[in-house]
C-alpha cells in the first residue's frame, strides 16, 4: 500500500525506518515538528537524502561560512555565481563566462570502481551543463592506497577505465589531474572529478522555478532502481559493518555516457532556443533534490505528478522514484507557450521528455501519485533548512609529537645520482602516462596543454584565442602535519601550476576530502584547512567560487590523510602565448631557478619513499611570493621571454629537471651551489624552473631583480647531449631516466 499524507495523519504512531535511512532521533523529531505529523514514506525518503551529510553539508556549513566572510567585494567582482549554485561562474572577459567545479565520488568508486568513477564524471558534467554552459574539459584528481596492495590493483584499473570510458564517450578532453598513492587511502580511494565549461555571459542559467503556471519537464533517461540511497548511505557513512545493525544496501548508479552526450547537445539546443526558465541536473538524491531545490529557490510552490515519471523498472514506490539516482536526467522549468518547442528539440535528439509538474501559487511542494498526495512539504525545509551541527573540535593529542618527529635525523645518501633515478621511479613521482594514455585529450580540438603539463589549458574563443588553464593539487602529508599550512600549500601549488602555463589565476574551487566529522580530531583538521584555504585566497585576492565536502573517508577508526584538493582557474588572453613544460623548443636556452630553496623535508616525497617517514613541519607557504612569481611568469609569457616553465613540488628540483628533459626530449647541463642534497630534493614552495632563450636572459633576469624575485642561473639546455648532467655528480642518460620514470606504473598495473 502506498503511504499517503492522509494515511500518515491517520497512523501517527506507525514505526518508520528513519535510522536505517541515516536520520538521527532528533532529526526525525524535527521532521515531525515541521510537518506537524509523521512523514510519509516518500517524505521520509526525501528528507533523509536531502539531510544527509553529502547533500546538506550539516557538519561543514558552519565552517564553510568562513569562505564567504573572507571574500571581499573586490575578490567577488568577477564572480557571476558562487557557492550554493550548481557551480561557480566567473567572467573571463570578451563576453565569456567560465564555470568549473570539482566533486567527489569516493565511496561509490570503492564499491564499484568502474561505474563509481564513470558516474562521478557524469555528475559533475551535468552540474556544469545546468549552469547553461557547454562542458569543455574534465580533470580527475585520484588517490589510492599502497601501489602494490591487492585492493589498489582491484580499484585502480577500474577507476581509470571508468573515468576514461565515460569521458571519452562523452567527448570531453581530459586535460589533467593527479594520481597519488598513500597507505591511508587503502580501502578508501579518492575519486574527485572536475569539469569546466563556458558560455556567453548572457546565457547563464540558474536553478529556480519561477512563474506560476510554468511547467516542470523531466528529460533524459528513464528512472530506475539504481543508486537508491546512494548519497545518504554511501557518501555519508563509513564502511564498517557494525554487528547487529541492519546492513544498508549500497547501491552504485550505472552510467550511460552516450545518453549523456545526447543530453548535453539537446540541452544546449534548448538553451539556444531560449525555452528554458530554470534548470537543474539530477544527481545525488535524484528527483528529491531537483524538485525541492528548484521549488525552494523559486518564488512559488510546485506540484509534481509522480506517476508521470517514465520508469525503467516495474513496481517502483513513490519513495523509490523520488530517491532513485538514475543517471543522465535533467529537470527544466518551461513557460507553457514554449513547451511545444521544448518537446520538438527533445524529439530531434530522441530524448524522452515528460511534463511532470507545474509551478503553483503558495509555498508548498506537493507530490501526488495517482491522485493521492504522498508529499506535502515546505520545500525550503527539505533543500536549504536541514540540520546544522557545530561538531566538537579537538586538536589531536599526537599532533605535537608528529610535528616534533622531524626528518632532520634521517640519513641522507651519498649517491645522489642514484637517488634521482630512484625518486623518478617512485610511484608518486613516476610518469602517469599509463593512466592518461587511456583518456582522450584531443577531442573538440581546443586542448592546448594537458598532462603531463603543470596545468591543463583549453582555448575558449577560436577567434581571439582566449582560453583558460586549470590545475588541481593537494599534498595530504603536508596537510596532516599542519592542516592550516597544508591547505595554503595546496592552493599555492595549484596557483603556481596555472601561472607556469602563462595564465593569470582568477578563481578557486575545492573538494574537501576528510575522515569522519564525528571525530573531533578530524573536525579540527577540517576547520584548520578551511581557514588556511580561505586566508590564502584572501591573500592572493582570488575567490572560492564553489566546492564540495566529502566526509567519512576512513577505514575503521583510521581517517585518510586530510585531503583538501584545490582547483585553480586561470585566464589567458591568447593561448598561443602559453608556456610549454618541456625544454628544447628554442635554440640556446638558459635554465633559471626562480624562488628560494631552504632545507625543508617535512612530509617530503624523499622522506616518504625512502624512509617511510612522516613528521615535522611542511614547507612554509609564502603567498606574497607566489603572487610575485605568478606576475613574473605571466609577464614572461606575454613578452615572449619564457620558452618553458615547470614548477617545483614533490621531489624537488631533481624531479623537475628529470621531467623537463624527458618531456622536451633534450638534455641539460646543470650547476648547483651549496649542499647538493638540499638543492636537489628539498620541497620548498614558491619555486619554478624556467627556460629562457639566451637572447632574452638579460631582460628577464633584470625584471626579476627589479621586482625582487630571487633567481639563480642553474644550467643550460644541451640539445646535443641526450643526458641530464649535474656538475660535480655526473650524468644520467635520458633513456635510462625514461625507463625509470615511465616503467613503474605499467609494471604495477599492466
Amino acid at each position, binding site marked *: 500500500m502506498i503511504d499517503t499524507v492522509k494515511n500518515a495523519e491517520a497512523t501517527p504512531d506507525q514505526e518508520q525506518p528513519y535510522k536505517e535511512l541515516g536520520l538521527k532521533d532528533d532529526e526525525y523529531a524535527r521532521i515531525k515538528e515541521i510537518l506537524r505529523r509523521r512523514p510519509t514514506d516518500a517524505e521520509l525518503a526525501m528528507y533523509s537524502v536531502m539531510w544527509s551529510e553529502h547533500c546538506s553539508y550539516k557538519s561543514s556549513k558552519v565552517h564553510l561560512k568562513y569562505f564567504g566572510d573572507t571574500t571581499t567585494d573586490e575578490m567577488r567582482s568577477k564572480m557571476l555565481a558562487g557557492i550554493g549554485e550548481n557551480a561557480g561562474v566567473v567572467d573571463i572577459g570578451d563576453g565569456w563566462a567560465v564555470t568549473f567545479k570539482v566533486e567527489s565520488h569516493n565511496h561509490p568508486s570503492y564499491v564499484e570502481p568502474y561505474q563509481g568513477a564513470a558516474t562521478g564524471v557524469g555528475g559533475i558534467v551535468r552540474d556544469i551543463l545546468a549552469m547553461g554552459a557547454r562542458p569543455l574539459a574534465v580533470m580527475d584528481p585520484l588517490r589510492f592506497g599502497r601501489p602494490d596492495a591487492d585492493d589498489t590493483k582491484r580499484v585502480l584499473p577500474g577507476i581509470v*577505465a571508468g573515468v*576514461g*570510458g565515460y569521458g*571519452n*564517450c*562523452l*567527448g570531453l578532453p581530459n586535460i589533467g589531474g593527479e594520481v597519488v598513492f598513500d597507505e591511508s587511502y587503502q580501502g578508501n580511494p579518492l575519486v574527485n572529478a572536475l569539469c569546466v565549461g563556458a558560455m556567453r555571459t548572457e546565457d547563464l542559467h540558474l536553478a529556480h522555478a519561477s512563474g506560476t503556471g510554468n511547467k516542470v519537464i523531466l528529460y533524459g533517461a528513464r528512472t530506475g532502481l539504481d543508486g537508491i540511497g546512494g548519497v545518504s548511505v554511501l557518501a555519508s557513512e563509513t564502511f564498517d559493518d557494525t554487528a547487529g545493525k541492519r546492513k544498508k544496501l549500497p547501491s552504485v548508479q550505472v552510467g*550511460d*555516457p*552516450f*545518453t549523456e*552526450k*545526447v543530453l548535453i547537445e539537446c540541452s544546449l539546443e534548448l538553451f539556444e532556443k531560449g525555452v528554458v526558465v530554470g534548470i537543474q541536473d539530477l544527481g545525488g538524491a535524484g528527483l528529491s533534490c531537483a524538485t525541492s531545490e528548484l521549488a525552494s529557490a523559486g518564488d512559488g510552490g510546485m506540484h509534481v505528478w509522480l506517476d508521470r515519471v517514465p520508469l525503467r523498472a516495474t513496481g517502483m514506490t513513490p519513495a523509490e522514484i523520488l530517491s532513485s539516482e538514475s543517471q543522465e536526467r535533467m529537470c527544466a522549468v518551461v513557460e507553457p507557450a514554449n513547451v511545444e518547442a521544448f518537446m520538438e528539440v527533445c524529439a530531434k*535528439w*530522441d530524448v524522452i521528455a515528460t511534463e511532470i509538474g507545474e509551478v503553483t501559487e503558495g509555498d508548498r511542494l506537493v507530490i501526488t501519485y495517482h491522485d493521492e498526495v504522498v508529499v506535502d512539504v515546505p520545500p525550503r525545509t527539505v533543500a536549504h533548512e536541514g540540520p546544522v551541527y557545530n561538531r566538537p573540535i579537538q586538536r589531536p593529542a599526537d599532533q605535537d609529537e608528529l610535528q616534533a618527529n622531524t626528518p632532520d635525523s634521517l640519513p641522507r645518501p651519498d649517491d645522489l645520482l642514484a637517488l634521482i633515478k630512484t625518486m623518478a621511479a617512485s610511484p608518486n613521482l613516476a610518469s602517469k602516462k599509463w593512466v*592518461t*594514455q*587511456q*583518456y*582522450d*585529450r*584531443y*577531442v*573538440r*580540438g*581546443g*586542448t*592546448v596543454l594537458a598532462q603531463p603539463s603543470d596545468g591543463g589549458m583549453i*582555448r575558449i574563443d*577560436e577567434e581571439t584565442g582566449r582560453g583558460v588553464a586549470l590545475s588541481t593539487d593537494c599534498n595530504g602529508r603536508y596537510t596532516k602535519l599542519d592542516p592550516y599550512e597544508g591547505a595554503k600549500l595546496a592552493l599555492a601549488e595549484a596557483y603556481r601550476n596555472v601561472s607556469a602555463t602563462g595564465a593569470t589565476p582568477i578563481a578557486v574551487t575545492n573538494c574537501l576530502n576528510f575522515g569522519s566529522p564525528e571525530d573531533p580530531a578530524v573536525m579540527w583538521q577540517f576547520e584548520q584547512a578551511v581557514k588556511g584555504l580561505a586566508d590564502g585566497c584572501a591573500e592572493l585576492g582570488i575567490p572560492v567560487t564553489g566546492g564540495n565536502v566529502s566526509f567519512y573517508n576512513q577505514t575503521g577508526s583510521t581517517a585518510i590523510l586530510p585531503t583538501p584538493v584545490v582547483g585553480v582557474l586561470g585566464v589567458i588572453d591568447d*593561448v*598561443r602565448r602559453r608556456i610549454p613544460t618541456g625544454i628544447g623548443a628554442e635554440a640556446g636556452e638558459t635554465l633559471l631557478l626562480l624562488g628560494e630553496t631552504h632545507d625543508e623535508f617535512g612530509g617530503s616525497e624523499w622522506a616518504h619513499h625512502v624512509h617511510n617517514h612522516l613528521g615535522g613541519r611542511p614547507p612554509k607557504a609564502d603567498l606574497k611570493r607566489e603572487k610575485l612569481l605568478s606576475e613574473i611568469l605571466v609577464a614572461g609569457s606575454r613578452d615572449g621571454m619564457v620558452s618553458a616553465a615547470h614548477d617545483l613540488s614533490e621531489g624537488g628540483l631533481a624531479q623537475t629537471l628529470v621531467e623537463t628533459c624527458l618531456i622536451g626530449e633534450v638534455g641539460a647541463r646543470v650547476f648547483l651551489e651549496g649542499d647538493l642534497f638540499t638543492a636537489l630534493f628539498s620541497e620548498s614552495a614558491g619555486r619554478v624552473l624556467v627556460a629562457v632563450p639566451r637572447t632574452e636572459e638579460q631582460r628577464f633576469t633584470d625584471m626579476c631583480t627589479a621586482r625582487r624575485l630571487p633567481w639563480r642561473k642553474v644550467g643550460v639546455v644541451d640539445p646535443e647531449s641526450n643526458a641530464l648532467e649535474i656538475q660535480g655528480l655526473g650524468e644520467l642518460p635520458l633513456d635510462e631516466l625514461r625507463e625509470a620514470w615511465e616503467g613503474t606504473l605499467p609494471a604495477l598495473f*599492466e
Partner: protein
Amino acid sequence: MRVGVVTFPGTLDDVDAQRAVKYADGEAVPLWHGDHDLKGVDAVIVPGGFSYGDYLRCGAIARFAPVMQEVIEAANKGMPVLGICNGFQILAEAHLLPGALTRNHKLHFVCRDQWLKVENTNTAWTTRYDLGAEILVPLKSGEGGYQADEDTLKELEDEQRVVFRYVGENPNGSRNNIAGITNARGNVVGLMPHPEHAIDALTGPTDDGLGMFLSLLDTVVNA
C-alpha cells in the same frame, strides 16, 4: 569545395572535422544522421566518436542510418569519402572498405601521438604527401585493431591499398601494422588515427594531418 560532415547521435569529432575542412579553405556542411540527401556536397567525412553509443558493435547501427544510404551510393559513384576512427568502423560495416576493427590487443583505450608512414599517395585524400613520408598524428581508440582474412590482406598489399601504416610499436594489434586503407578506386579512405586533430601544432602534436584535407581540395578542383 563543399564537404559534408556527418553527425550521428554520439558523434564527437564532427567539430574537429569541420574545422579541418575550414583550415583547407573548404566549406563544411553539417549532415544529420536522419538526412535523406547530401545537400550537394563534393565529398563526405564520417568523423570519430561513439555513434549510437557503439551499441551492438562499433558502427553496426550507424551504417543503417538514412544518411549512410546516400553516402554509400555516392561513394560507389566515386565521391571522395573519408572515415576517421568511428567513421572507419562505419565504412567497414557498410562494406565500403574491407575488414573489421577489433578491440585493442592490450584491451585499453589508447590515446597517443602516433607516427604513420604514408604508403599510397594516389587516393583522393593523400596526394599532397610524399610517398614514404612519416607523419605524426593522434591515435585515440579502444577498438582500432585492423583485422582481415589472408586473402583480403594479400589483395590490399598487392594493390597498394594500405594508405597508412603504424611506425614503431604496434599500438593496437592491427594486422600488418595497418592504420588506414582505401578502396580499389581510391576515393574512399578509412583510418583509425585522427588527421583532423593534427591541423595546428597549437592544439595537436603537429599540422601533419592538414595534408589530407588539402589533398581533397586538389581532388575536388581537378575533378
